[in-house]
């Protein structure tokens, strides 16, 4: 069995295979000593792809629609939170697109690495992993499990898989190499790695898990962190700095309270009234199952004005007074930075190679790959925090804003569009950042450049999943607003009862 198969298999088994096995199988497959036995049998990889908390909605339905709920959870790997999968795909296509457009993508790097460095032998890999594991065990009570600050194991494996696939499709059997690099990235960059366990605890909310992960990151003594993975590039810390965690927590509170209200109202209804209400809630829920991204259409990234215009229009459709300026500004700043970073080399492309090289050197001095990486992670954290803030504010206004001539269903559909738009934009942003990285890192060795590229895709993919999580938290909020709009005459202003 080739390493490629291992990755595919791991993918298939994702629902049952412990996360550690998934990562370790890459190594084991080459007859390496497994670094450590996967001790954490209670950690199905799939859990990290889901929100750590039971979906409020499914919770709600658990009592009323048991059959439906079961179907939903069965489908989870394809839809809902398995939606992730499609992100994996879109990452894959982004990666290939980068290769195609820049010509300095991952496979090129690998090729370079293969010829110049040689792909490390399995023994080397295992030795290094062992070493990493040793270091880690010392500080982490012997737990080998290397996970991201946000319990990224499955993310990592997704990244490994997609990177692996693109590499293989490029005719290079270098999965071990990527695997090793990924392990390095995890080991170096994500010290707070016991967090995966936190993610498995169903009772903890996403914001709790993220907060703990962030705390772990803070705790990590910076002298043990290498330059590339300096605290400046720690997504969790940055996400908190932009108040993403707090907005998420506040949104969770609103979501939870709404959920309780919906339940209690439903339990007070009966007969036809109950039936129609359920039906309407069901329609609402459908609006929350995000359609797959249209993957075939290669999305042109939107211009800054287009983005600002579209997000503003979407918010106008919501009829809430949320303001997208902060998000739009952060987003446009990121693209502006990329533009200036890329401007010169692109302009000089027709010129002689020497000049191009000179330009690149100059650019490299201007923005080193470490700079680009740091800025990319920072931008992703900021945009995600802004997006979640927007959702939080929207929830507050849906619950307590003025009555509006817009239905909960219409709002849900708009929010769904907004989520897709935000995630797509993150994907194209991460693509742009990796383009920057490959351009600036044209002379860098693969083992320097690769982890940075992987990290950017990884955090972009995480960002998208946080945004989708936040979006799902809006469902109970819209459900209660639907019920309240139904049950009350529009004139009577509703004073929400305490909980």
């Amino acid at each position, binding site marked *: 069995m080739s390493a490629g198969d291992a990755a595919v298999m791991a993918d298939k088994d994702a629902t049952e295979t412990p996360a550690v096995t998934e990562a370790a199988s890459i190594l084991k497959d080459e007859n390496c000593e497994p670094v450590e036995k996967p001790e954490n049998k209670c950690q199905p990889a799939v859990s990290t792809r889901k929100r750590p908390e039971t979906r409020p909605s499914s919770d709600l339905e658990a009592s009323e629609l048991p059959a439906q709920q079961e179907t939903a959870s069965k489908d989870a790997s394809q839809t809902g939170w398995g939606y992730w999968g499609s992100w994996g795909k879109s990452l894959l296509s982004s990666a290939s697109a980068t290769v195609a457009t820049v010509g300095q993508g991952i496979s090129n790097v690998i090729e370079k690495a293969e010829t110049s460095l040689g792909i490390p032998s399995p023994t080397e890999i295992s030795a290094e992993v062992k070493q990493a594991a040793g270091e880690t065990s010392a500080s982490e009570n012997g737990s080998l499990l290397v996970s991201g600050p946000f319990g990224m194991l499955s993310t990592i494996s997704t990244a490994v898989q997609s990177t692996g696939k693109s590499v293989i499709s490029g005719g290079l059997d270098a999965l071990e190499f990527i695997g090793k690099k990924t392990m390095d990235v995890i080991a170096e960059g994500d010290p707070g790695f016991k967090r995966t366990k936190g993610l498995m605890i169903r009772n903890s909310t996403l914001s709790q898990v993220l907060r703990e992960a962030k*705390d772990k990151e*803070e*705790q*990590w*003594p*910076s*002298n043990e962190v290498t330059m590339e993975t300096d*605290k*400046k590039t720690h997504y969790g*810390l940055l996400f908190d*700095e932009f*108040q993403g965690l*707090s*907005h998420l927590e*506040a949104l969770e*509170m*609103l979501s939870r*309270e709404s959920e309780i209200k919906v339940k209690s109202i439903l339990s007070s209804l009966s007969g036809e009234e109950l039936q129609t209400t359920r039906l309407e809630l069901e329609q609402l829920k459908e609006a929350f199952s995000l359609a797959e991204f249209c993957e075939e259409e290669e999305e042109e990234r939107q211009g800054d004005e287009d983005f600002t215009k579209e997000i503003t229009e979407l918010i106008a459709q919501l009829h809430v*007074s*949320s*303001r997208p*300026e*902060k998000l739009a500004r952060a987003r446009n700043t990121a693209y502006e930075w990329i533009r200036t970073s890329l401007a010169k080399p692109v302009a000089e492309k027709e010129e002689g190679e020497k000049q191009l090289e000179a330009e690149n050197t100059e650019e490299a001095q201007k923005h080193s790959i470490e700079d680009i990486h740091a800025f990319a992670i920072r931008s992703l954290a900021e945009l995600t925090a802004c997006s979640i803030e927007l959702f*939080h*504010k929207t*929830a*507050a*206004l849906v*619950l*307590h*804003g003025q009555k509006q001539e817009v239905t909960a269903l219409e709002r849900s559909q708009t929010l769904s569009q907004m989520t897709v738009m935000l995630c797509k934009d993150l994907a194209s942003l991460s693509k742009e950042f990796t383009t920057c990285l490959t351009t600036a890192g044209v002379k860098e060795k693969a083992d320097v450049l690769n982890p940075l590229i992987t990290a950017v895709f990884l955090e972009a993919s995480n960002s998208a999943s946080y945004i989708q999580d936040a979006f799902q938290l809006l469902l109970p909020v819209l459900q209660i607003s639907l019920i309240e709009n139904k049950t009350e005459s529009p004139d009577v202003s509703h*004073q*929400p*009862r*305490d*909980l």
Partner: protein
Amino acid sequence: MEAIWIYQFRLIVIGDSTVGKSCLLHRFTQGRFPGLRSPACDPTVGVDFFSRLLEIEPGKRIKLQLWDTAGQERFRSITRSYYRNSVGGFLVFDITNRRSFEHVKDWLEEAKMHVQPFQIVFLLVGHKCDLASQRQVSREEAEKLSKDCGMKYIETSAKDATNVEESFTILARDIYELIKKGDICIQDGWEGVKSGFVPNTVHSSEEAVKPRKQCFC
């Protein structure tokens, strides 16, 4: 080894609409008074967030996580759910707005009702003290009220930065003392106080925000 921060306190800021809660926090966390057209001057929707490190004793830093609540009545039910996880609070009124002072007791009552089983250490803040000519609440009566309710009282101005640092320092120190005495404990499932870490270096971005010394007027 020096600590980044020994504790994290979650503090809530409450008070009537337009008394200047957000501006106070802006001044404290960003070091400036937001311009009139700044989005910071829009009424707060639900809650907003700020954070900053504060050195309460040499080498002893506290991370303040600040929950800036909406003063508007329509968001009141949201605000209520935030009391429980706060260890301290700024109860802000506007010295040029008599009604905002009269509502102080209501705010306090509401907080007490919703904070159970925990406690909140409150500081009464008479804001906009730069507008002395328009004063509608005397320092004496504010001090009397604060005494009756077991709070300290301070007058601040976000506009000219009067007592802004001080008010946060006073509240943080009081809470810190209560922790030292064991009156306040860190508890699982409670966000009010979290213990900090003792790493080797300080998070750069947080160090950038150094507490400034400010003069009393």
